[in-house]
């Protein structure tokens, strides 16, 4: 059984009416997407902005409610109520693109990392769990008392990773988790992600337009365009032998090192 499944997932956005007599325009962000993520695998969803990849990720982790379709996590249907979402929340960690805006500037590193423990009312010694998480992402324990503005971009994104794994989730979801960082930091975080995956047997769902990142971490690729999945398969196969013209176009557009 898949850890995470979507069936017929659809999300429409009703745009504001432009005139009184015209019917409102509906934008289809996602059109009937089916997806399965197996326990322990790393799946990357790729596509351009507007392809629906972030909408898909948001629906899968219960941050948004589908217009139609269902999401199942660990055999249970996830719906909009807080009660139904709790098991999913308990077992999910999230990392977003921008370590500058995703960390509360008024909280210390320790408080930021410990937030999921408080929000999910997880029993136990929070301080010890925070220390362990900082260690997992190789951040010096001395940084626990610091504030985000005192850290470098790479350290901030490590804090974001620590927050994502502090409650030992089974699923890690990243939305462009490395695109705001420079190349050296990216290489270090790529190693970190690989290690966390191994150590905690994490299932990983990545949303990215960064084929470099995807090539180095994903087992499976899902290519999206205009709210639909146009191709999916093993990362190795999709990148070596893309079937859909759009996938080919995407791969051809990537700048390469000589």
């Amino acid at each position, binding site marked *: 059984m898949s850890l995470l499944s979507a069936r017929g997932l659809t999300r429409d956005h009703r745009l504001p009416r432009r005139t009184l007599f015209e019917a409102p325009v509906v934008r289809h962000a996602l059109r009937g997407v089916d997806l399965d993520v197996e326990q322990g695998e790393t799946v990357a969803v790729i596509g*351009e*902005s*507007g392809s629906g990849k972030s909408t898909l990720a948001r629906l899968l982790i219960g941050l948004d409610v589908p217009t139609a379709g269902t999401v199942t996590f660990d055999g249970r249907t996830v719906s909009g109520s807080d009660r139904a979402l709790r098991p999913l929340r308990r077992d999910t960690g999230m990392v977003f693109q921008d370590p500058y805006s995703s960390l509360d500037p008024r909280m210390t590193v320790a408080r930021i990392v410990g937030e999921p423990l408080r929000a999910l009312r997880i029993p136990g010694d929070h301080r010890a769990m925070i220390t362990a998480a900082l260690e997992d992402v190789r951040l010096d324990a001395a940084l626990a008392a610091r504030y985000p503005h005192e850290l*470098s*971009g790479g350290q901030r994104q490590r804090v974001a990773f620590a927050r994502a794994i502090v409650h030992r989730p089974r699923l890690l979801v990243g939305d462009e988790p*490395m695109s705001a960082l*420079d*190349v*050296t*930091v*990216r*290489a270090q975080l*790529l190693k970190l992600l690989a290690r966390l995956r191994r150590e905690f047997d994490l299932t990983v769902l990545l949303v990215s*337009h*960064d*084929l*470099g*990142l995807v*090539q*180095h*971490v994903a087992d499976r690729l899902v290519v999206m365009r205009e709210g639909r999945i146009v191709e999916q398969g093993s*990362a*190795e196969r999709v990148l070596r032998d893309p079937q859909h013209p759009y996938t080919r*176009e*995407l*791969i*051809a*557009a*990537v*700048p*390469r*090192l*000589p």
Partner: protein
Amino acid sequence: MTLEVRGLTIRIGDRTVVDDVSFTVPDGGRFGLIGGSGSGKSLTVLAILGLLPDGADATGSVLLDGVELLGAPERRLARVRGSRIGTVFQDPQTALNPLRTIGRQLAEPLRLRGRLTRTATRAEAVRLAGLVRLPDPGRVVDAYPHQLSGGQRQRVAIGIALALSPGLLLADEPTTALDVTTQAEVLGLFDRLVADAGASLVFVTHDLAVLAGITREVLVLSEGRAVERGPVAQVLAAPQHPVTAALVAAARATSFGAGEGS
């Protein structure tokens, strides 16, 4: 135009953030500045433009076709920036004024320069919109920035930079915020327009693969110092300085390439 930077040193308070950096971009040259965050590459560009933030102090020399820009009066710098140096920065979202039409912004450098009639200004804006391949130039000039995609906004920024046919273009991470397909289109356009204009180019990026596609010579900066320079292909193939070697290794570990990775 020829750009000569000699012994450029930038201090903020008692901290030296750019330390004795020199390089020359010959007329029509394609020059890349590369380095991690905090290496001083963006400050170097701002110093060339005379746009360093308050509290930052630059010494040394910045010569554009032999004319000193460093320490030149603001009035003269403003003229140079508009007409001889074009700039494209990373974020087209913030570079454009949300309250003004695309056409007005495309024509702004021309309007500031001279006594163009309203009709002539509009015609120029439409011409520039066409030059940067915006869809339906005759109508897009009446649109506002929020009605355009990120790639289209960056095309507008390129159009503004090219409005007065500058001899030197400075681009700081101009495609970093764009999707891979959009990036490829915008880079292709930029490459062609720089060639057509015969302009010299200084291109700042942390993306070695992008750099390799658009520049010939590269200067590697680390913590404000120039650590290595040379033809792009040579620097990438056989980096001499440990900093360059680390950058190239990191790029190879994270960027896309056939037969690499998992």
